[in-house]
């Protein structure tokens, strides 16, 4: 597995105009670049990324973040980690489901638990809570009901 600086150089070479900030072992990218970077990783034969292993939504109080872990089953390498940050007032991120089918349920769960809206997802609705539930439980400011009164 290449070092992160080499991957950054490689990606900036092939995708003009992309902004990548390397933080330890992950890349912080803007949401408008997500699909281009993911498509490039998939089609580039030296990476051949074909497997999105984990899609996680995190609530840092000033912003929401979505973390993607990519691996390659064909070349047995990985992980390549991408992070996308959005504000709470405008939590929209383009969906990876058209490129990687395996992200379908994981993005639905990130929507259900944290409230990130994935544009382009074929069926974005709640998956673990019932449909009428009005809150996003894994946000830090969520208060559950008190069953003792």
């Amino acid at each position, binding site marked *: 597995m290449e070092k992160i600086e080499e991957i950054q150089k490689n990606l900036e070479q092939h995708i003009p105009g992309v902004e990548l900030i390397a933080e330890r072992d992950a890349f912080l990218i803007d949401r408008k670049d997500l699909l281009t970077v993911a498509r490039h990783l998939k089609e580039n034969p030296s990476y051949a990324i074909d497997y999105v292993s984990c899609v996680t939504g995190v609530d840092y109080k000033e912003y929401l973040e979505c973390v993607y872990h990519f691996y390659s089953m064909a070349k047995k390498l990985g992980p390549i980690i991408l992070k996308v940050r959005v504000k709470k007032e405008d939590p929209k991120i383009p969906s990876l489901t058209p490129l990687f089918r395996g992200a379908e349920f994981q993005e639905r769960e990130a929507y259900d638990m944290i409230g990130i809206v994935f544009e382009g997802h074929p069926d974005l609705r709640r998956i673990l809570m*019932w*449909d009428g539930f009005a*809150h996003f439980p894994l946000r830090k400011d969520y208060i*559950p009901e008190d069953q003792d009164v």
Partner: protein
Amino acid sequence: MVDEGLKSELQKQGLFVTSIEQLYNWGRRSSIWPLQFGLACCAIEMIATACARYDLARFGAELFRGSPRQADLMIVAGTVTKKMAPQVVRLYNQMAEPKYVITMGACSISGGPFREGYNVLQGIDRYIPVDVHIPGCPPRPEALLEGIMNLQKKMDAQKLWQMEWYKQGKKREYPVPEFGPNGLIPKYNPEVFDPMKGNIETEDIRPKT
């Protein structure tokens, strides 16, 4: 009932004396048919109890029915979540009298280790009456066998003429809770549950010392 000495005398002559109530209860408690209703981890211990090592079949309870209309006993094994609670109450309503409920495991008694979760119902006894509680996480198969034996003792002690379902053919049905924006509505059923005291209908069948 009948004097024990008289009973043994008559038995030596080949006459067996009992009452209809005892016979009826003996038949009922020796062939309890549970409902196939495993929710979570405790269900696996329930299956292990039904398997060859701990054999539930000796108690007459080996036949797990798939439909609630054909079952006598609902063993609520596992965590009851708020999303699942309306279905549990619906299944209870569909069972025919006489029906019993055993809550197996800490989760269905009071929420268990997951009690502080936003989707976890703190005990199924908020909505339906419960007869036997079996604590444990998960309870060992021997504990489930002890619970079934306690239920059998309770069934033996039930006086038929005083049971509602025998006298008037009444069936116990409870209103099904609905999904609200942050929980279930209502939070508990005041007919069966008092927040200060717990489940109202459970009787204590332990021998009084």
